[in-house]
């Protein structure tokens, strides 16, 4: 089976004045369709940088990145924007919804940038239905609870049928119970065939993934496939 993400010797060096900071020092990683992978590590380990590169928000200094078999590390800005739009769905710790827009409008946003006009509303409604928010379509995001806002963000991430959902500390702002609900939602999406990559530093959250990648100092130091489902 072809991997969704294939990383070969990815390096990322930031220049802070005259000092070079090595955020990633050669990362090799493959993520296959339908997988749920948690990337763990202390802050400064490079896990966020890795996620930004996988999400095409950042470019590696060295190395190759194949997204569904396509070389993407040398594409231009517009091509990357297009790939982000079609192939990647982001879920952030702070939800990043447009505060005055309704749940529907927020979910429509990626479709808008995809140039979809016909059936846009329906697709956004379906996505919200899928995350269990069919009854909250017209609520503005600042009228929703944290858990509901994150569900809207997840609906937004999956509305364009991406190849990959990237979630950066998706439960970081939520209480334990809501966190469990959100993780159960990710598991459900995974069962439906979605590929999910989580970045987290909480073992409780990482446990939901079947595969855990641990990073330190810009390298992968451990990979386990021992994740088990605490609910089922």
């Amino acid at each position, binding site marked *: 089976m072809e991997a969704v993400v294939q990383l070969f010797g990815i390096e990322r060096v930031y220049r802070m004045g005259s000092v070079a900071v090595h955020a990633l020092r050669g990362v090799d990683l493959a993520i296959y369709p339908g997988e749920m992978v948690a990337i763990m590590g202390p802050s400064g380990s490079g896990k966020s940088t890795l996620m930004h590169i996988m999400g095409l928000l950042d470019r590696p200094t060295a190395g190759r990145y194949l997204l569904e078999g396509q070389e993407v590390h040398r594409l231009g800005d517009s091509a990357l924007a297009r790939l982000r739009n079609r192939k990647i769905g982001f879920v952030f710790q702070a939800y990043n919804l447009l505060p005055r827009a309704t749940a529907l409008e927020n979910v429509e946003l990626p479709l808008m*940038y995809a140039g979809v006009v016909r059936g846009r509303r329906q697709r956004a409604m379906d996505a919200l239905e899928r995350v269990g928010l069919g009854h909250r379509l017209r609520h503005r995001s600042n009228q929703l609870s944290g858990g509901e806002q994150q569900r809207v963000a997840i609906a937004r991430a999956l509305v364009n049928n991406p190849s990959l959902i990237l979630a950066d500390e998706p439960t970081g702002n939520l209480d334990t119970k809501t966190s469990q609900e959100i993780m159960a939602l990710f598991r459900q999406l995974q069962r439906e065939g979605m590929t999910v990559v989580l970045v987290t530093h909480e073992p409780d959250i990482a446990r939901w993934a079947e595969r855990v990648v641990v990073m330190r100092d810009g390298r992968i130091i451990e990979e386990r496939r021992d994740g088990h489902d605490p609910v089922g």
Partner: protein
Amino acid sequence: MTLWDSVLTALRALTVNRLRSALTLLGIIIGVGAVIALMSIGRGARQTVTEQIQGIGSNLLFVTPGQATVGRVAGAASLASLTTEDAANLANLPSVSAAVPRVSFFGQVVNGPLNARAQIVGTLPQYLEVRNFQVAQGSFIEEEHTITGALVAVLGANIAAQLFPNDDPIGKTVSINRRPFRVIGVLAPRGGTGFNIEDDTVVVPLTTAVRRLQVRRSTSGGIAVDLIYVQARSSAVMEQARQEVTEALLERFQGNTDAFTIVSQQEVLQALTQVTNSFTLFLGAIAGISLLVGGIGIMNIMLVSVTERTREIGLRKAVGARRRDILLQFLLESSALGLVGGLVGTAVGYGLARVVERFSIGGQNLRAYVAPDVVLLAVGVSLAVGLFFGLYPARRAAGLDPIQALRYE
């Protein structure tokens, strides 16, 4: 992203901060309103001047005696170079239908306790037709009056109203420079507005003016006059008439081109139009400064908006917005401010122009003409101002790094 979606997104962003958008708009509204109001006053002045010059008569040449100069001092004797005889000769030229001489000076016109300062015009009966005047009451001066030098006067509309507020002036006696004149007629007002004194004149026979009111001698016989109105047979032969008049006068003055000056109505009009155009431009430029300030207001608010919405911009980029999508969105916001400001400003400017028309300066009503090209210009400029001052903030937004933008607090 479709253009329609971009427009809707931009308009929504503007309605989120209503007060702020309204205040920014106000800057543009004031600027455009001022441009339109002031330029309309300039255009109104041009229209007034044009009508006034055209109202003097049609197809006219103004022939005046030249002021020959000695050193840089005007020679007094040379002032009176044109005479009634010259006028009579010019009237016989083939392209000329009439040539009417005129002398004029200011004088005091008195009726009992009432008095008025008037321009006294001494001329011939043809003056009425050449100058396009109408007689409202009584009659105009006649051939007989000029032959005898009769003490008769025709009053301009304003003078008649001032000296005879309640009664009929016809047949009454007024004194002009302490000599009694019988009023035989009243001219119809020129009407309209402007800076003219046409309704403040008193017309008397030429001979009377010269013999009884003012003494002037010619250098070469006849009565010296200070202006001859030459009317061409049609507008088509204006140039020809001018040529004939020039030749005739050159012959008469033995080739001395300084002895007379010929100015056509068209030239007077052009000169005055140039003046009023400069005036309009000057007013527009002053008002343009406030439009510029309005534009800076747009830039200011757009910069604030970009900073405030940094995270939103990062999110939009993360879900697939390209640089140009972001650029377009912010440019649409700023140009919408410019355009709406321009349209509302036009309405305000129109209103101001109407208000200005209620005022008068020196008894003359101000006139404002809201010209379509001025409106187009003002709206176009305000749209351009929105685009121009929106460009820098929009580029800044489009160039934001999505990772930094998403982390921005």
